[in-house]
């Protein structure tokens, strides 16, 4: 039918990137934007550690220090870690399930641009009167007008915009994974990374609305004189803590589950073995996601909830160690007896396992409420969550990037540079954060801008700062590696690692339609099943035919720009600007609703042409 839908005018260059609805390109956009924010957050971390290198330094001063820790945390969680996760999800999940596209290409693009403009809005605070300075948790009453500067408004509005983008991105992946799987790709045949993305998207869906409400309430308090968190007018500051952590704890699993998924893929591929205990891995992923919603108040043991609540939340938290432990042992048993290779991807994966285990172990220590009264708000907590988020998530992301880089960009990353990248980053990481456990136990509180000499804190802080240079060098080496690979003319093969899953059955980078013919999945590790059956590639579920593709659109970009403009209007109490921004956004929504996108078709002769070239 409908072979007459014609080609849309092809855009090129910058216009193509602003209008793209191709999940592979959106993945690259997420990676670039997330990478830039990662560098900003890293620079902030470097300044923090320089300020703390010696006692009583005045490198940045107390006020700037508060801004730096706030922006470092906010940027790294919301604007660096999440987007890079979304980058890999976009680049890989549709390929792993044998889909030509995501369920909502337009919404996918909108999600990216909302995140991007939200992130930019927060960061413009540096130039418009000071960054937010109440910590990334932005607790009331500290974050109210009386105690904090203008910067919090940027935090409140920027995170609402970016969070909306993340939310719709999550919905897109849920529907994609439920509805768009290739024939034969049952749920229990899905690669673990797709499973992790699925559970993470579910967590996003149920966790982000909670913080959105918290941010709205804080915004109403700050901008419109509401009294949610103002004790003088009957408000209650603990409500913020609950709303923040009802989001905040699941957020930890939103971040770490995709890393678990990546590690599962990488360890299995480079052991040339099927993942050990696949079903228990799926079960553990889902269980972690479920329990993740039951434990938020372990961040509030010292708030005064009473012994019963503290005990229950403490026990629930310790329970999560069980499915997490299952995962650790499954990775070890996958490697056991495998033909293990150690390219950079697997170095990061194998480095991840002990590092993350340490982070998980300190997590169980923190889950004991009486002990937590000692650890609370100390550097022990800082060490713990950096072991989980850097030692866990960031190692996982590096593993994923080295593993899937050829699929995303069609070029290999250099292995020698990669090994230097790994060792400098790995050693730098442990130098930075291992001593912080002891600094915390010795009583150094987090978020202080300096400390006195003669209290035994000098050595730990000095080593910690030196370690940051290692991580900095590692990051720079990664950038050099990316640059070298972009400049090289050598093309990556379709299947450089002797892969097991569907993404390795198509060219690197894949054509815009991903699969010329939808593959037929005949088992777990779909490509490996075919390899073992002696087949050259996948068997197909359909003959070669005309492929329907969606058109690109400027609307997601403009729609997000509208909210970006309205955000400034709110902050400066200029309701004309709010109106202009809202009209832009809702106007775009209306246009999208009224004007159907017929898309265009790629015909079999074009596919064959391209197929020969690739």
């Amino acid at each position, binding site marked *: 039918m409908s072979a007459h*839908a014609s080609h849309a005018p092809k855009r090129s260059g910058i216009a193509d990137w602003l209008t793209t609805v191709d999940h592979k390109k959106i993945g690259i956009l997420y990676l670039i934007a997330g990478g830039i924010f990662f560098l900003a957050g890293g620079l902030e971390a470097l300044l923090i550690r320089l300020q703390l290198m010696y006692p009583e330094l005045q490198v940045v001063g107390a006020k700037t220090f508060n801004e730096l820790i706030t922006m470092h945390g906010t940027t790294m969680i919301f604007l660096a870690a999440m987007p890079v996760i979304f980058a890999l999800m976009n680049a890989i999940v549709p390929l792993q399930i044998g889909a030509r596209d995501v369920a*909502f290409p337009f919404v996918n693009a909108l999600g990216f641009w909302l995140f991007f403009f939200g992130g930019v809005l927060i960061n413009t605070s540096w130039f418009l009167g000071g960054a937010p300075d109440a910590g990334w948790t932005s607790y009331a009453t500290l974050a109210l007008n009386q105690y904090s500067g203008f910067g919090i408004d940027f935090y409140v509005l920027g995170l609402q915009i970016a969070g909306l983008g993340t939310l719709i991105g999550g919905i897109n992946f849920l529907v994609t994974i*439920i509805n768009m799987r290739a024939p034969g790709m049952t749920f229990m045949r899905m690669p673990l990374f797709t499973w992790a993305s699925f559970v993470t998207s579910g967590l996003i869906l149920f966790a982000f609305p*909670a913080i959105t409400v918290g941010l709205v309430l804080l915004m109403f308090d700050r901008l419109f004189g509401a*009294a*949610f968190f*103002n004790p003088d*007018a*009957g408000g209650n500051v603990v409500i913020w803590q609950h709303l923040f952590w009802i989001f905040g704890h699941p957020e930890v699993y939103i971040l770490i589950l995709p890393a678990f998924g990546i590690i599962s893929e990488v360890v299995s591929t480079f052991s040339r073995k099927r993942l050990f205990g696949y079903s228990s891995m799926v079960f553990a992923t889902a269980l972690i996601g479920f329990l993740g919603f039951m434990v938020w108040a372990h961040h509030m043991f010292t708030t005064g909830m009473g012994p019963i609540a503290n005990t229950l939340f403490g026990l629930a938290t310790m329970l999560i160690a069980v499915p997490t432990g299952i995962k650790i042992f499954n990775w070890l048993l996958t490697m056991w007896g495998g033909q293990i290779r150690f390219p950079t991807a697997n170095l990061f994966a194998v480095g991840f396992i002990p590092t993350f285990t340490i982070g998980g172990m300190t997590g169980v220590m923190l889950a004991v409420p009486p002990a937590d009264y000692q650890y609370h708000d100390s550097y022990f907590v800082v060490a713990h969550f950096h072991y989980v988020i850097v030692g866990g998530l960031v190692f996982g992301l590096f593993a994923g990037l080295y593993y899937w880089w050829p699929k995303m960009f069609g070029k290999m990353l250099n292995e020698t540079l990669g090994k230097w990248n790994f060792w400098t980053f790995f050693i730098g990481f442990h130098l930075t954060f291992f001593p912080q456990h002891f600094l915390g136990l010795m009583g150094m509180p987090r978020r202080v801008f300096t400390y006195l000499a003669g209290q035994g804190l000098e050595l730990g802080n000095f080593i910690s700062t030196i370690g940051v240079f290692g991580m900095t060098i590692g990051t720079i080496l990664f950038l050099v590696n990316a640059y070298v690979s972009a400049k090289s003319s050598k093309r990556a093969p379709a299947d450089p690692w002797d892969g097991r899953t569907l993404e390795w059955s198509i060219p690197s980078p894949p054509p815009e339609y991903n699969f010329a013919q939808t593959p037929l999945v005949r088992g777990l590790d779909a490509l490996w099943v075919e390899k073992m059956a002696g087949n050259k590639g996948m068997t197909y579920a359909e003959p070669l035919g005309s492929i329907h593709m969606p058109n690109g659109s400027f609307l997601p970009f403009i729609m997000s720009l509208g909210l970006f403009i309205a955000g400034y209007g709110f902050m400066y109490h200029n309701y004309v600007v709010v109106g202009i921004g809202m009209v832009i956004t809702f106007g775009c929504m209306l246009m999208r609703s009224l004007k159907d996108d017929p898309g265009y078709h790629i015909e079999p002769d074009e596919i064959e042409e391209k197929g020969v070239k690739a």
Partner: protein
Amino acid sequence: MATHHVNAVLPDEPEKATLEGKNKILGFWLFLGGETVLFGSLFATFIALRDQTNGGPTSQQLFDMPLVALATLLLLTSSLTSVFAVLALHKKDLKKMQAWMTVTVILGLGFLALEIYEFMHYVHMGHKMTSGAFGSAFYTLVGFHGAHVAFGILWILTVQLQTVKKGLTVVTAPKFYVASLYWHFIDVVWVFIFTVVYLMGMIGGKVG
């Protein structure tokens, strides 16, 4: 799929006839899951703060049952008429579908008018967003719902416009169906608001 030129027979349940339609409906159900958490958080906040009037009028002094009951009646009826519209959709009766949806919109507008009147009345009595934690929580929860109603009305109108121009197709049917889902959701939220805010506000109240 470029199915908008299919002029032959419209399939049964046209809203689920295409993959796009199925995706849209599933995605919207998931979105409503997120909305549930959103309203749940607002309800929890309201319950925690509803006695903190900060010297302003209490809920017993404020609420006027006949007015709220009328608003409830309007909104619940509008949910029923939107069900009739979906039934007409499944019978592929475009005219009837449009008519029932128009009734839905009118009832929604009536609800909104009552709510605006109610808010103005309360402000007059000294119950404001800024008058204390109770005021903030009340206007945020009920106002969020009201904003959803207003958005729903505009949304249904744009979908109506499209069905006038394009008729009932596998492209317009899912849009229509999803808008009606949204309308039901708003209604369910109102049932909770009626119970938690108004009923509990009138019979409950702090002892002492």
